[in-house]
């Protein structure tokens, strides 16, 4: 049962790589957006808020198709990126990372936003009276106090990214060794005769990864509360 074949290893490692890169690249954007939504009032804020959450409620196949239209070879953004920066997303693992990053973005942003909202603004004011400019207040007060929330968001985003299926397969297809993640490998396996055992192994592995990530996320969230209470 636990003889993981080379092909399965490739899918597992690819999934990990895709999810880790997606999370790392999405995090700075997630922090910036979470801060904007938590701390600033501006025109169009509710639209931006809805836009961030859109991948959560949109059918994944729609998100994937929209990505194909915009980031595909002939897509507006995709063509420009390929011509000017040499970055290609279509049918590459980078495209899988992009799809996973976008699909997991709402789950990444939410804990960060909540933890920034929980930071006492009176502490930020106090830092200001001590001479800290707004960016220094962010770097030395807001972000450190929100850090456990940032880590919780990253872990949750990672868990979502590693399980992403619909948008990824729509956008970059299901190419072994390039875009075939654990999820799309399972999908292929259950459509082949005798694929049950292999599919079972991958299912078990994805359950373990997801459970581990959820538990880590909870642990970080608990740390956040402790930190805010100064112990």
């Amino acid at each position, binding site marked *: 049962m636990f003889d993981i074949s080379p092909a399965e290893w490739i899918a597992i490692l690819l999934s990990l790589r895709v999810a880790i890169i997606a999370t790392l690249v999405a995090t700075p954007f997630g922090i910036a957006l979470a801060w904007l939504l938590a701390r600033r009032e501006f025109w169009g804020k509710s639209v931006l808020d809805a836009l961030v959450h859109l991948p959560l409620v949109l059918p994944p196949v729609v998100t994937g198709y929209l990505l194909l239209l915009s980031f595909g070879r002939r897509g507006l953004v995709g063509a420009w990126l390929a011509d000017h920066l040499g970055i290609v997303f279509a049918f590459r693992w980078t495209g899988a990372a992009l799809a996973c990053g976008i699909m997991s973005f709402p789950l990444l942003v939410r804990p960060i936003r909540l933890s920034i909202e929980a930071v*006492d603004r*009176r502490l930020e004011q106090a*830092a200001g*009276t*001590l001479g*800290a*400019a707004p960016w220094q207040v962010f770097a030395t007060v807001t972000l450190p*106090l929100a850090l456990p929330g940032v880590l919780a968001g990253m872990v949750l985003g990672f868990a979502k990214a590693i399980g992403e299926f619909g948008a990824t397969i729509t956008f970059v297809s299901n190419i072994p060794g390039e875009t075939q993640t654990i999820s799309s490998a399972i999908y292929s396996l259950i459509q082949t005769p005798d694929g049950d055992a292999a599919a079972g192994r991958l299912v078990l592995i994805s359950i373990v990864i997801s459970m581990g990530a959820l538990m880590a996320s909870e642990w970080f969230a608990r740390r956040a509360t402790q930190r805010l*209470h*100064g112990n």
Partner: protein
Amino acid sequence: MLRVDVTKQLGEFSLEASFESQGRVTGLFGASGAGKTSLINMIAGLMRPDRGVIALDDETLDDTSAGVHVPPHRRRIGYVFQDARLLPHLDVRQNLDYGRRMNRLAADPAQFTRITDLLDIGNLLDRRPGKLSGGERQRVALGRALLSKPRLLLLDEPLGSLDEGRKEEILPYLVRLRDEGIPMVYVSHDAAELRQLATQIVMLKRGRVTALGGVKVLT
């Protein structure tokens, strides 16, 4: 010299205050809800007046007709809050050092030692704020504000959250602080406290200045 001449509407409450102070310790006296905290929040730059001028020595900090508003971090005005507001993720030493670091001033170990001795907090340096008593927290907040080298120190009921015994513990430190020579604005609703500390009184009632002068106006 501190010059304040501001108006501010806060919901139903209107604040219209004008005073000048040469005193070393200006006591801002009034019942709760008189507008004392709003007034010093404006001096600190945390709240903007609707109209008016705030000036410290030769520098205009706020002038609404000229569109001037110096942000809090450039005012070099220290603020000791009633609830201390120590940064919970930093230990006492890092809290005390925070203002110096943010202003990119060179380390001054002699001054650091002098202030920690003055306030008797030298034995607390490695603790987190969560592990301090109310009185200790307030003393650290005083030290932190002093070590940021302010031109003016604002104190908003620094004894307000402490019980009687603790007040007696802090008061001597405040007297020592006054004798340090940094000008202070001291907010309180306790006349006895101000008689011990203030050199000049601004009396505030429902958002208006009703009396100005020496500590004798408190009677």
